[in-house]
């Protein structure tokens, strides 16, 4: 955890004190390797909003945005960020630099597009939209993938102009190779949850462990982090577990501990989760590939979990339940994220007991601890 804190602190420090052009990116299906290889510093408004929620300052920012006319019914991350902008851009982590360009991939949600449009207006910076068509079934169809690849090529020349630096083939290959290495290590860690008992919690721990692969993918620090993390997990003596659960949905960041403890009391270990796939997934051996630079970035962009149809998501859940030998499914539906939550209640998997909970990922007002506890307890009580 301390290594992680240091990494995140360094990331913020580099943003406020470092040199080089700045690009804003969303988490979902981003192609961070490309701007990184062109010398850009990358910033993720969502990750910042998440940090605000975790540090319990999002509530104030959200109120501030609502005073400015944002509805109580829109994404809490956006409001947290708009509230932050209205407060002069200074948050708990220092001042975030203005973007030289915003690069919005559409695979995560269409809300980010509105968010980035608004930010581009505030900062008077150009916005590049990388349109990633949604994926209906297993894999993206060829014409959609071709369209994404071509746009990544177009993006490369835009970045070159703004960053005044050509993305050299070698640098890009090196960056992608580091992504691949980190991905291999990260997959190994996630896979360790197949052991019984599992030494690793694929939700309550993984949501922190996934930070470097989200914000630092392609850097040497990221590879180092996962190498050390894998060793640490390998050396663990697993604590006993009573239940093996799969979790669908993001965590309620402002009440993370309280939420985690509801499950801990029952000895429930999460063995697989979908939230770790909100950037993209590495199923069926997919990895970033220096020999197919643009193609693999495009493919990664399409593989973001919320870019997939509900039937495809159900198939993933079924597969993970089998693969990790889980005995229950927990669906956490958050208001803020419609691509996640609309239809989520029909994702129940046959013959697998399912617990459905609702709150939010950023807005502390939507979390009712008493009610949640009652439902969690009732669920595990029955299934005991």
């Amino acid at each position: 955890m301390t290594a992680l804190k240091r990494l995140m602190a360094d990331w913020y420090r580099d943003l406020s004190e470092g040199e080089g052009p700045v690009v804003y990116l969303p988490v979902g299906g981003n192609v961070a390797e490309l701007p990184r290889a062109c010398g850009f510093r990358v910033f993720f408004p969502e990750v910042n909003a998440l940090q605000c929620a975790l540090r319990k300052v999002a509530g104030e920012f959200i109120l501030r945005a609502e005073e400015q006319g944002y509805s109580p019914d829109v994404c809490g991350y956006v409001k947290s960020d708009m509230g932050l902008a209205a407060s002069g851009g200074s948050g708990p982590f220092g001042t975030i630099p203005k973007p030289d360009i915003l690069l919005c991939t559409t695979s995560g949600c269409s809300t980010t597009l509105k968010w980035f449009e608004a930010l581009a207006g505030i900062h008077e910076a150009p916005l590049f939209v990388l349109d990633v068509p949604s994926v209906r079934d297993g894999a993206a169809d060829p014409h959609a993938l071709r369209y994404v690849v071509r746009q990544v090529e177009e993006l490369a020349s835009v970045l070159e102009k703004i960053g005044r630096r050509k993305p050299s083939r070698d640098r890009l290959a090196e960056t992608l190779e580091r992504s691949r290495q980190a991905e291999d290590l990260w997959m190994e860690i996630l896979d360790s949850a197949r052991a019984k008992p599992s030494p690793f919690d694929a939700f309550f721990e993984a949501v922190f462990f996934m930070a470097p692969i989200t914000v630092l993918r392609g850097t040497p620090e990221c590879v180092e982090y996962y190498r050390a993390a894998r060793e640490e997990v390998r050396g663990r003596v697993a604590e006993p577990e009573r239940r093996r659960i799969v979790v669908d949905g993001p965590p309620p960041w402002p009440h993370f501990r309280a939420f985690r403890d509801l499950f801990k009391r029952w000895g429930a270990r999460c063995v697989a989760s979908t939230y770790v796939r909100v950037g993209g997934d590495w199923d069926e051996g997919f990895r970033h590939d220096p020999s197919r630079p643009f193609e693999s970035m495009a493919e990664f962009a399409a593989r973001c979990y919320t870019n997939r149809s509900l039937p495809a998501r159900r198939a993933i859940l079924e597969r993970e339940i089998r693969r990790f030998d889980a005995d229950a499914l927990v669906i956490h539906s958050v208001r803020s994220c419609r691509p996640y939550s609309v239809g989520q209640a029909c994702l129940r998997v046959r013959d697998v007991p399912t617990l459905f909970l609702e709150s939010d990922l950023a807005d502390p007002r939507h979390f009712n601890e008493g009610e949640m506890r009652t439902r969690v307890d009732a669920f595990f009580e029955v299934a005991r």
Partner: protein
Amino acid sequence: MMDALEEIVASCGRTSVAEDVAAWKARTGGKAVGCFPVGVPEEILHAAGVLPVGITGGAVTTQRADSGVPTFTCSLARGTIERGLDGDLSILDGMIFPDACDVARNLEGIWRENSPGRISEVVRLPRNPQSKHAHAFLESEFERLRTTVGEMSGRDAKDKDLRSSIQAYNRNRALIRELSRIRGEQPWRLRATESFLLVRAGRSVPVEEHNALLESAARAIEMSGRRRRDGVRVVIEGAPCEPPPAGLIETLEEAGCLVVEDDFLAGRRRFGADVEATGSPLSALVRAVLRDVPPSGPRRAEGLIEKVRRTGARGVVFCVAKFCEPELLDLPLLRAAVERGRIPHLTFEVDGGMGVFESVREQVEAFVEPPVFFP
């Protein structure tokens, strides 16, 4: 006594969508497919002999707990699934959803999971129209749709069929543009509620029939001797996807607004000019889509100010569907822009189930009264 136009408008609501579709199916033996707003290319369905049925919302009556559509989604989404699965829209042979918003895109999966045997498709509209490759992508996307629809109806949409469908829809859009022109210039000759109902009537009949209706309405407007009516000229913004109930528009007008422009039923009005009916028809459709991408965010705010100036409107009424995130996210930007332009504005969050408009009336009356407009 009703004038000729009022009689035509009254005829629009006499039969329900389900009755219209049932009658058409009985008459032709064809299939009917729902087109969720905004952006499904109806021409492709029409050319394959399928009836495209426009989904325009309405009240949500029961909450199907198992449908998976949460309560914090627009009534359009909730209503479509509910009515499509076991309500009046179960007469449809399938649904096509554009991925215009995250909710619409996910509805496709819900529909597919719950309606085996009926078609369920997503049309992915390009969100990067600046890309040189958006055209090729969208053309393949439309081609894919043409194949799916053709397989379903048993009749291929050949290029020549598509060209004549494009012509029929061009005629439709030209007639609708004409209604908008009249309203912009002499709003007392055609009320916003009337034009809304006239345009909406096209949702459940073939386009040729709708064209005939609009032509007769145009003639009736021409003949009518309606007297000039005073009121405060306003633009309505914020409802391109889920429109407000007609009663709300009527209330705005009764309370003193002359609605000179609105963005209701945007799918029927998305092209500012004709789609070319020569050459490759799919390619022509794609060019039109890429040419007339609706502006969003700050660009939309600029467009709104321009619209207000162009129409000589004195105020803006925002009618945004409750829980509609795309509109609710643009709203603060739009409001900030009209405030900078010192344009008075008023906001309503609407829901397909709204039936009582007393508080709307009071707010509008206060809005159109001096001193807001006559300082």
